[in-house]
């Protein structure tokens, strides 16, 4: 879709959560996502790039 920095999340209705986790685990998951978002913001990209919270960045 052209967005340069994308963090992959788990489901449409809850971009920064995961209701299947208990509340402490969910909070940790959210922290992981936002940490990844900050990493993306500090990374130089040349085109749409997906940052997987569990892995490496790759072209979209």
């Amino acid at each position, binding site marked *: *879709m052209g967005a340069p920095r994308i963090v992959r999340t*788990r*489901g*449409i*209705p809850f971009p920064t959560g995961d209701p299947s986790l208990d509340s402490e685990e969910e909070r940790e998951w959210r922290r992981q996502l936002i940490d990844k978002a900050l990493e993306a913001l500090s990374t130089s990209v040349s085109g749409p790039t997906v940052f997987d919270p569990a892995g490496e960045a790759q072209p979209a």
Partner: protein
Amino acid sequence: MSWVSPGESARIVKVLDAVEPRAKGDGAGGVFPGFLSPARPVGLGTTHVLRGAAVVAAGYLPRAQESVVEMSGEAAQLSPLGSTHNLVVEFEPSSDASWEDVDTALRRGLLKLAVRLAEAALEADPTAVEELPAAPAQAQDDRPRVAAITNLQTQGTFKDVFVYGSSMAGSLPTLIDPNELEDGAVVSGQYGHPGLKNPTYIHQNHPVAAALRASEEAELGGVIICPEPVDQAQKELVSALAARLCKTCGFDAAIVTKEGGGNADADIALKVDALEEIGIPAVGLFAEMAGREGTAPPLVAPPTKATAMVSTGNYDEELELGEVERALGGERIDLRDVDAHEAMEIPHAAIYCALNPLGWGRLTCEDAT
């Protein structure tokens, strides 16, 4: 309950589901399996259809979006209900009922009423008799066998579609005989995106299945129903499996339809691409979201491999509705905050089934000269 007929200066607002009256003769089983008859395979024997009539629920439900049916004027031809005699059911929930229970009761009541109406005509001589053979297991001649891949909306209460009485959510692609649809195996409980809705009435008269049956050059291979999952990995899995199912069945091509907008576009795009990837030509039915002026990019999630698309019209273009004498379903049109009788300008998106994703309508888009 009240009747409203084609040509009347009338409007139905807050339209929810619509059902065609159908019933089975003696000993032939039931219609609407899982709701009014046991959840067992249907689609055999004789089905009595009260053609030209519909039972329609209209009123407020949460998450339902404003929808309008015109019974006269230009806009009447944009909705299947514009040319049927409609028994409109308006309702008032009991104060202690949950909305989920209201929805469930409404659906059951609507289906029962449709069957009662059709049963009243069981003794009458039919105006016409149609024979619908089951989809053949193998090619009958050298015509290509084409699958109708039918995505069903599955986003929870008020945005759900039922198959044999249960939500399609969480299911994998399923091959069914088109005749199962004739007996109401698929029932809608989906009230979002009025212009992009597939009501029960249209599932009972599946337009792609009907068009393939009518074709002399193609043969209807079968109907594959699929959920529209909310999870991306599930979307990809369902799309890949639907394509593989076509391959396994030996289908030569597929026509893919959706319900709803936005996310539903991702589902249809993934499927036509998955089909093309394994060598099965695919056509998708898309609605355009090109803005009021028709100048914006028409799709938010276009396919990247498939190229053949049918346009069911621009969702955002507005049209004029005249003043009417009679309004059913509600007193106001919330979308425009006006009295439901008044003349108004309204987007095609609000006209019930105007851009019907299952291909019922004639609406499409052209480039302006």
